[in-house]
C-alpha cells in the first residue's frame, strides 16, 4: 500500500468537481454538457426517428444507438486523428448496452434514438462522463426511462482502491486497474463493467461497493441539471 496521498490531494473516495447542464444544443431533441475534473462531454439525442438501413429496424421496439468521439484536440498528447477508431466503436457499444436496461422504446417500433457524444477535453474517465451525459440528454429528450444511469470509474492505484481516476493516476508508475462502472440509481444494478489491469476478487468487490456511494454524487448532479433547466422555466 504505497499510494496513500492522491496526486491531486483528493480523499480516496472523492470525485473530481462536477458540473452539468441540460439542453445545451438547440437543434437536438435532448442534450447535455457534463464535466468531471478536466474531462468534458457534450451529448445530443435525436429521435425517435426513421432508422436506415431498414434491415436494422426492429418491429417490436425502437433501438438506441450511441456514437462516441473524442475531438482531435482533446487528448493530452498529440492530435488524435478524427474518425471512428476501434476504441471509439467499442465504447459506443458498451455505452449502448449500459443505457439500454432503463430505456423503453416499445412505443416507437422500427425507429432509432441516436445519441452523439463529443469530448472537447479529456483527462481519463471519458466513457463514464459520456454515459452520465447521455443519461441527462435522454431524459431531457423526454425518452421514457425507468431509472437514471450514472457512471464513474473506480480504480486501484498501487494497491489502493480509489474513485474517479485522473490521467496522472491511470499512468501512475505501478500496478493500476481501471474499472469503469455504470449503475441504475434505484436498484444499484451494474450496467457497465469493464476492467483493465490486475486486481483480486476481493478488491473488485470493494471497488463496486465504492462505486455504489460514488455514483450517488454523479446522480445528484444529473438530477440537478435536469430540474434546473425546467425550474428556471417555471419561475
Amino acid at each position, binding site marked *: 500500500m504505497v499510494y496513500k496521498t492522491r496526486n491531486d490531494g483528493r480523499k480516496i473516495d472523492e470525485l473530481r468537481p462536477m458540473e452539468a447542464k441540460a439542453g445545451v444544443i438547440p437543434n437536438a431533441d435532448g442534450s447535455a454538457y457534463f464535466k468531471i475534473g478536466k474531462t468534458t462531454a457534450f451529448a445530443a439525442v435525436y429521435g425517435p*426517428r426513421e432508422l436506415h438501413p431498414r434491415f436494422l429496424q426492429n418491429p417490436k421496439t425502437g433501438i438506441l444507438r450511441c*456514437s462516441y468521439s473524442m475531438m482531435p484536440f482533446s487528448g493530452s498528447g498529440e*492530435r488524435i486523428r*478524427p474518425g471512428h477508431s476501434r476504441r471509439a466503436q467499442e465504447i459506443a457499444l458498451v455505452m449502448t448496452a449500459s443505457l439500454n436496461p432503463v430505456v423503453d422504446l416499445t412505443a416507437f417500433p422500427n425507429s432509432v434514438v441516436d445519441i*452523439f457524444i463529443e469530448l*472537447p*477535453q479529456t483527462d481519463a474517465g471519458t466513457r463514464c462522463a459520456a454515459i452520465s451525459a447521455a443519461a441527462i440528454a435522454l431524459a431531457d429528450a423526454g425518452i421514457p426511462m425507468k431509472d437514471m444511469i450514472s457512471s464513474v470509474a473506480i480504480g486501484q492505484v498501487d494497491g489502493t482502491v480509489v474513485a474517479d481516476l485522473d490521467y496522472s493516476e491511470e499512468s501512475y508508475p505501478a500496478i493500476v486497474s481501471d474499472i469503469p462502472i455504470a449503475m441504475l440509481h434505484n436498484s444499484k444494478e451494474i450496467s457497465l463493467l469493464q476492467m483493465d489491469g490486475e486486481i483480486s476478487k476481493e478488491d473488485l468487490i470493494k471497488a463496486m461497493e465504492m462505486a455504489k456511494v460514488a455514483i450517488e454524487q454523479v446522480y445528484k448532479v444529473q438530477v440537478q441539471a435536469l430540474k434546473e433547466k425546467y425550474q428556471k422555466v417555471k419561475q
Partner: protein
Amino acid sequence: MIENKQTISELASKNKRLDGRGLEEYRQPITIETDISRTAEGSVRVQIGQTVVLAGVKLSIEKPYNDTPDQGGIMINAELTPMSSPEYERGPPGIKAIELSRVIDRGIREAKAIDMKKLCLEPGEKAWFVIIDIITINDDGNLFDAGGLAALAALKCAKFPEYDPETGVVDYKIKTKESLPLLKEPLPITVYKINNALLVDPTSQEEKAYDARLTIASDTNGTISAIQKGGNTPLSIAEISNIADLALKKAKFLREYLDKVIK
C-alpha cells in the same frame, strides 16, 4: 424538415427576413470564449446566434515538405458532427465539411498569415506543424463565418508547448508563453444572394433558400486572400463589387469582437 423557402425568398425581395433582421445585420449574441479545451494549444468557442462551433489548435513536430525544407506547415479540418444537426451523418467528412475547411484553409494559407519559416526548427528535418480542427456543436447556419472566426481566434490564442531541443521531446502538459508567429489576420465573410437581395449571417433555413453565395477572406488592411463562390446562380461584376464592399465592412465588424477578447 421546415424550410420556409418561398417565404424567405419573397421577403428578401422586400429587404426583409423571417426573423425580422436587416439584410446586413448579424444575429446576437456574438461571443468568443477562449481556452475551452486545455488539452489544445489554443482553443475557442464561437457563437453567432444559435450557431456554436469549437476550434482547437494542435502543434506537432514533423519533417518539413521536400519543396519547403525551411518551413513548417498548416492543416485545417472541419467536422460537421451529427450532434450539431439532424442533417449530418456519421462517417468521413462530406463535401460540405470539405468545402468549409478548404475555404478557411485557403484564407489563412494564401494570406501567408503564419510566418512558416519561423516554424522551422531544423531545416529539412524538423518544423512545427499547425493543425486547426473546427467542430460544430449546433449548426444554425453561417458556418463559414463562425468557423473562420473560430480558426483565427484559436490561432491567436495558441501557445507553443514546451520543447526540448536536446531530446526532441515535446511536453504537451506545459505551455510556454510564446504565441504563433502571426503576420496577418484573415477573416472570411460570406454574403448570400437570395432573390436579388444580398444578405449576411444566414440561418440554416435561409441557407436552403439562397441562389448564390460568395465567401471573401480579408485581412485587417482589407486585402483579399481567398474567394469562393457557391450556388448555381451566376453573379454580375457589379454584384461582386457590392458583395466585396459588404464583406469587407462585415469583416471589420466581426474583428471588433475578436479584438475585445484576444489582444
